[in-house]
């Protein structure tokens, strides 16, 4: 904790960044924006930090204040690499204050982040409990699965907290806000809720690092990670895709290989 605060303070003091985005040392660990060296004493990090701070990097308010530094556990580091691959971060404008558990790992630029991930986190895997939940759901009949989601999606109020929490949701105009034509109904009703959540998850395939911020942000407790996990597993198994490791990766959706599977095609 001390090392993190010192590193953040140093960055601000030396004016290498104008802002450090971190977690505040109070209950719930909300996001905290340190603009002055003396603010850095309020920074904290531990396992209870669920928010993916990389989500702020897409916001115009933050972009106006580049360069910035972000406190980044491994999933956030991967998000930074994803955003770099998708040309969302101007080169050299974002530094990562890498943290893991209780330890502070240092300050890294984009290339350093990718290197750190490869060296230290190349075997990050989804939580087994999550995959078990996916498997459990898949073992049910299609009607039971539909009923499960019917019950879940009926709770959705369309607050879009899931979108706001996600670093991959950086579009300036989300598809759900497109109204000519309106592909996704905005009324908080079954079909619109379904299409929204399914498309939100699909639009993140190749981007999602399974950080869990969307699910954590959902005030209604929707099991959004099930959708993310099934796509993550499929992308890994079929295409060897592991988002957030290669800053020069081609987009998963938007590239292809001649030997991609098509056994299900007739």
């Amino acid at each position, binding site marked *: 904790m001390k090392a993190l605060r010192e590193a953040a303070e140093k960055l601000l003091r030396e004016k290498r960044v104008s802002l450090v985005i971190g977690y505040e040392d109070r209950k719930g660990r909300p996001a905290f924006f340190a603009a002055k060296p003396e603010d850095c004493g309020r920074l904290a990090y531990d396992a209870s930090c669920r928010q993916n701070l990389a989500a702020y990097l897409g916001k115009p308010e933050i972009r106006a204040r580049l360069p910035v530094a972000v406190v980044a556990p491994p999933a956030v580091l991967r998000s930074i690499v994803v955003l770099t691959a998708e*040309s*969302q971060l101007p080169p050299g404008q974002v530094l990562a204050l890498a943290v893991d558990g209780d330890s502070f790992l240092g300050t890294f630029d984009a290339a350093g982040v990718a290197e750190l991930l490869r060296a230290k986190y190349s075997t990050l895997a989804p939580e087994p409990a999550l995959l078990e939940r996916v498997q459990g759901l898949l073992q049910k009949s299609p009607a039971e699965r539909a009923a499960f989601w019917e019950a879940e999606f009926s709770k959705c109020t369309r607050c879009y907290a899931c979108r706001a929490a996600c670093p991959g949701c950086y*579009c*300036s105009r989300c*598809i759900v806000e497109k109204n000519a034509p309106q*592909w996704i109904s905005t009324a908080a009703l079954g079909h619109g809720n379904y299409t929204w959540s399914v498309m939100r998850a699909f639009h993140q395939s190749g981007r999602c690092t399974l950080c869990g911020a969307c699910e954590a942000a959902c005030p209604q407790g929707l099991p959004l990670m099930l959708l993310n996990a099934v796509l993550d597993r499929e992308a890994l198994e079929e295409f060897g895709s592991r988002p957030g490791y290669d800053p020069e990766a081609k*987009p998963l*959706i938007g*590239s292809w290989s001649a030997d991609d599977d098509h056994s299900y095609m007739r």
Partner: protein
Amino acid sequence: MARIGVFICHCGENIGRTVDCAAVSAAAAKMPGVVVGMDYKYMCSDPGQQMIRKAIIEQKLTGVVVGACSPRMHERTFRAAAAEAGLNPYLLEMANLREHCSWVHSNQAEATQKAIDLVRVMVAKVRRNRPLRPIRVPVEPTALVVGGGIAGIQAALDIAAGGKKVVLVESGPSIGGHMARLSETFPTLDCSQCILTPRMVEAASHPNITLMTYSEVASVEGFVGNFTVTIRRKARYVDPAKCTGCGDCFNKCPIKKIPNEFDAGLGLRRAIYVPFPQAVPNKPVIDAAHCTMLQKGKCGLCAKVCPRGAIDYQDQDRLEKVKVGAVVLATGFQLWDHAAYGEYGGGRLRDVIDGFAFERLASASGPTAGLIKRPSDGKEPKTVVFLQCCGSRDDKVGKKYCSKICCMYTAKHAMLYRHKVHDGRAVVFYMDVRAAGKGYEEFVRRAIEADGAEYVRGRVSRITRRRDGKLVVLGADTLAGRPVTIDADLVVLADAVVPRPGSEKLAQLFGVGYDQDGFYSEAHPKLRPVETAAAGVFLAGACQAPKDIPETVSQASAAAAKVLGLFAKPELEREPVIARVNRTTCAHCRACISACPYGAAKDFDIVDRAGKVLRAVADVNEGLCQGCGTCASVCRSHSVDLDGFTDEQIHAELNAL
């Protein structure tokens, strides 16, 4: 306010028999936005078209749906009719009531219901259609021909004769290609160089042709009508402007023992050389890999003897850009390396040679001055075995396909050998003799009957070299049903025809497809054999598939005709189905840029008046875009849309179902 007209065609009885056309037009008339619903016996006939034209004018229609045959059949017809009546042709759509409905269903109620659905979908779509204009792109009336063999020479000459400029690029030091290496040609046995060299000279001296030898395509930008091609002019170390071709340099060069590629390695050349005496341009180049001056800085003899000071050891590769409107790829072929056949000596037996080596042995201008001498000891071979289909029709080790020219040139080889060595024995092993061509079968018969070539139907299983230097050829005579062993002095393998190395990379530069063997893919195997999937890029010769000379020349002339056709108008017109980017909402994730098969989607910087970059977005080049719409569907925010198949149109279609 939409005013749609719906016109249902009976197509005689073709639609009318199973679809109640009157019911469909009546139902259509009640659909939202529809002001006219009519049906008629033959909508594509003149009175039918007149009905449509009249309705467009009188009813002030803003859109038309024709329920008739497949749009692949008559969309063009009806759109032309609409245009004549003053309606933008892209405001007309067709519902496929024949191929997709009346012809495939027999129940009238079902078919009629489906027909109504199909019409409703198209009405919903056409209400969202926008007037489109064909895309016009200016054409740069200069052609690029890649490859200076007979295909490239012919294409260049024909285009030049049509009054258009040509840039002819050849990777070697001289044009002429493989044809210049041949001794005589089948089926007439006329001397290859005698018929070729006048054309080489003509190509070099034609005012419309710019010759770039010792040059290669380095990169390609642009699209049909507007390519910018970067040519790498390889360092020659001899200034062609100063060189007179006197030959003092290569007569003095001390590095003498380099196998000459032109002679299939049978003859020797110097480090500074012209590949063959009739080369065009007849000016030497220095082979940097073998020149001691360029490698070690020692020698410099050629510079000393050159009376014109043309030698320049400091010469370097240069890049030159040319702007062209069309491209002819004529990169030709090479022979497959029979070293892959261990049973034929794995390439180690010196007296087992390929067809080109035999051509050079038989050529009056070759390393033996036309005398048949075998490479190992220079003796005249008394028994020569010719083996056809070496690497062809063998998908285990070689190639699956038939190389097409080998039956004929093997017959020619056997014939030439018998003409030169009267007491010699020529044995040809063959699988089938494929002599389909004018005068070809007669030619093969002549080789067998008049010139006494012994044709043995069967394969050779092994060639070994005995201590006395004889090649023991073990084969099967499948007609006699027994194994045969022949003690031969020389074996000529008719190696498979394969594309030139690097041809795949070139295809990728131009966006041309190629098959698993690396031969370039034509746009349609029957009806567009000269075009490629890349607009404005045409094919000539053996780069597409194995071909003999007449076929190559025919295709080269066809490619030239295609190029001249393209150049006949100052502008090109293309279907306006292209993608557009909404720059306001584009988040620049670059998925579309990665996905575009044509490189049409690219980065675009939005700048302010001072030129400062405000934001980067994606953009689509109208000239390159072919309208597949892949970019639109990878765009998460739907900031890319496809004219003719817009989000709104598809959404409306789905809502109408």
